[in-house]
């Protein structure tokens, strides 16, 4: 059974149809890249899957691990193992990083009927995972994303992913605003999490990220539809020729 099965998904934002019939199947262990020009519907797809208010699926279905994803609240989706790494991570003044992650992890554990984590044990694990991403302890105490650089915010997203251990991670333009060093650190963090039981959907405008997170499948999204699918070679071709062909074709 596929981990994620999207069939003929249509979605609206403010009454305007942005997704116009997406079909996509993602199996556990796979990395799929979705590439497309600005305005093709990349972020709408990620927000619709994550359940953001105002992103309304009007037609089609999304099955996740055999369950109707669109029927779940955003927090249920997350507890079921869906993770969206935000293109623009949100600043949370007054919410400390450690508290935030502990609350999130314990919410997930409670959802699955597991006991809450011991605070000491949690902090120890968190520090190890942060260290691997080059994040000092001090950053974990600060309010989430407040005053972080673009690179620090993306590292923080990657840390959250490492802690929450999702089954399906959607990376929404994780490369935007990153210099090459930050890109390498974040990609390494993602690659460490690659696992036969886990899948990734990497949404990006540029091929560059895919040099570091190498996909099994590449899809081209244009005007709300997937207009072409192929291997990682397709990404290289897009890098060389641009999206013009696909925009015209769609």
């Amino acid at each position: 059974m596929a981990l994620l099965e999207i069939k003929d998904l249509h979605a609206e934002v403010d009454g305007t149809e942005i997704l116009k019939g997406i079909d996509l199947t993602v199996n556990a262990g796979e990395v799929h890249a979705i590439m497309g020009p600005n305005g093709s519907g990349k972020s709408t797809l990620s927000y619709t899957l994550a359940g953001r208010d105002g992103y309304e699926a009007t037609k089609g279905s999304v099955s996740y691990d055999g369950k109707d994803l669109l029927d779940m609240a955003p927090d249920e989706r997350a507890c079921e193992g869906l993770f969206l790494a935000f293109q623009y991570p949100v600043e949370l003044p007054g919410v400390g990083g450690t508290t935030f992650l502990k609350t999130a992890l314990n919410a997930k554990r409670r959802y699955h009927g597991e006991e809450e984590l011991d605070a000491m044990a949690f902090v120890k694990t968190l520090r190890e995972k942060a260290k691997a991403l080059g994040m000092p302890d001090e950053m974990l105490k600060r309010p989430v994303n407040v005053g972080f650089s673009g690179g620090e915010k993306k590292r923080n997203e990657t840390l959250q992913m490492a802690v929450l251990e999702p089954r399906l991670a959607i990376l929404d333009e994780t490369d935007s605003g990153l210099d090459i060093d930050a890109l390498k650190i974040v990609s390494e963090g993602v690659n460490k999490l690659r696992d036969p039981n886990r899948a990734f959907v990497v949404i990006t405008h540029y091929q560059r990220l895919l040099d570091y997170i190498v996909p099994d499948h590449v899809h081209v999204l244009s005007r709300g539809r997937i207009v072409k699918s192929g291997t990682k070679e397709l990404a290289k071709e897009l890098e060389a020729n641009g999206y013009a062909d696909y925009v015209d074709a769609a």
Partner: protein
Amino acid sequence: MSDARTRQDPFQDALDARATRADAIAPLRERAAEAYRDAGLPTRRVERWKFTDLKGLAKLGFAPAAETPAPDALPETVADVEAVRLTLVNGRVAPGLSDLDRLPKGVTVRRLADVLEARDGSSDEAGEGASARLSVDAGFTDAPMAALNTAFVEDGWLIDIADGAMVDAPLHLVFLSANDTGNDTGNDAGNDAAGSAVASYPRLSLHVGRDAHVTIVESHVGQGGGPTFADGVSEIALERGAVLRHPVMQNEEAGAYHVHSTALTIAEGARYDGFVLQLGAALARREVRAELTGPKAEAHVNGAYLGDGARVVDNTLFVDHAAPETVSRETFKGVLDGTSRGVFQAKTLVRPIAQKTDGQQLHKALLLADGAEVDAKPELEIYADDVACSHGATSGDLDRDQLFYLRARGIPEKRARAMLIEAFMIDSLNAIGHEGAREAFREALAARLNRMEGIVG
């Protein structure tokens, strides 16, 4: 006095019925009683009471203020702070709940009741009479509730901090409103009083001597579940160079009426560092009046409050800049749910002499439900030409992007909202200069948020 007015104002009746007390402040009581009779229970027609209506008080019956035996223990709503505790139960000193035997060096504490008994009023063992320390209305104008306290006050604290004292251990003043009507143990005489409110008139007179530093925490809490009315007055003087940290928490029970007037005089170079956290009561009005009487005096009157159900939470401030280079800071944050209402009235007066005044007022409210309301009225009245003053007020709902971000990490909506509300409030708690109090207030806020109903708008 018409019958109609008598029916609407139980305090007029109580004043008429009270026995004359020949104590140290008898003349003061008479003047206070007159002041109250002239004004009556404030109505919304009075500008300063425009947003807060006390008529609910008039509907309560009041039990005669009987001696309440002090409870064995204080409720959990009291701030959990390591301190020297001084407790008033329904306005009367509870020695068993007070650490009178371990007062820090430089701190003198007297029971107001003892001082009042020194009938001539001219002197007591400390050489200072109660009448010199108390006033009719603590300097407030149009202040019938403060006058009412003076008319009825029976006990309280007179606290003196010696010149130059650096008091490390904070004092913790606990004001308990107790009404155990739900647990009547066959007290036949008071049976018809079951369900009526217990009124109390706690009083504090505090002098902080020259260059003295002290932290005084307050917890205003309730016990017993029956309706209560606490009408408190604090008169506080900071001498030259004194520093008073004064975190106050109002966490009374749901049936409580809480009115408290605090009058401050702040001398040259002294700094008042106050914080008011209001979490409870059916209706709470805390009024602060600060007079900056000497150059470079500072008044920091910050606070936070939380309303749900149909609560009314009122913070009314008046800062009088009467000397040059004085500073005032008033930042309040409120969270309102249900059909609760928040009131923030702040007036800053800058007199002609008060050049180089630095005054700021800011009120921020989170409105979680359509029925919730906030009335914010920040006001500056400036008669000096070289000043830096500002004021502002904002209100809005929780940030949707932040809410989604938390939920996208698996945190259920109710918990996510509580986290964001706490976060909104928490940075204001950073204004509390005493770490132990800050931590205790933070815990009380978190506990209160967990109990808050209908948090999901």
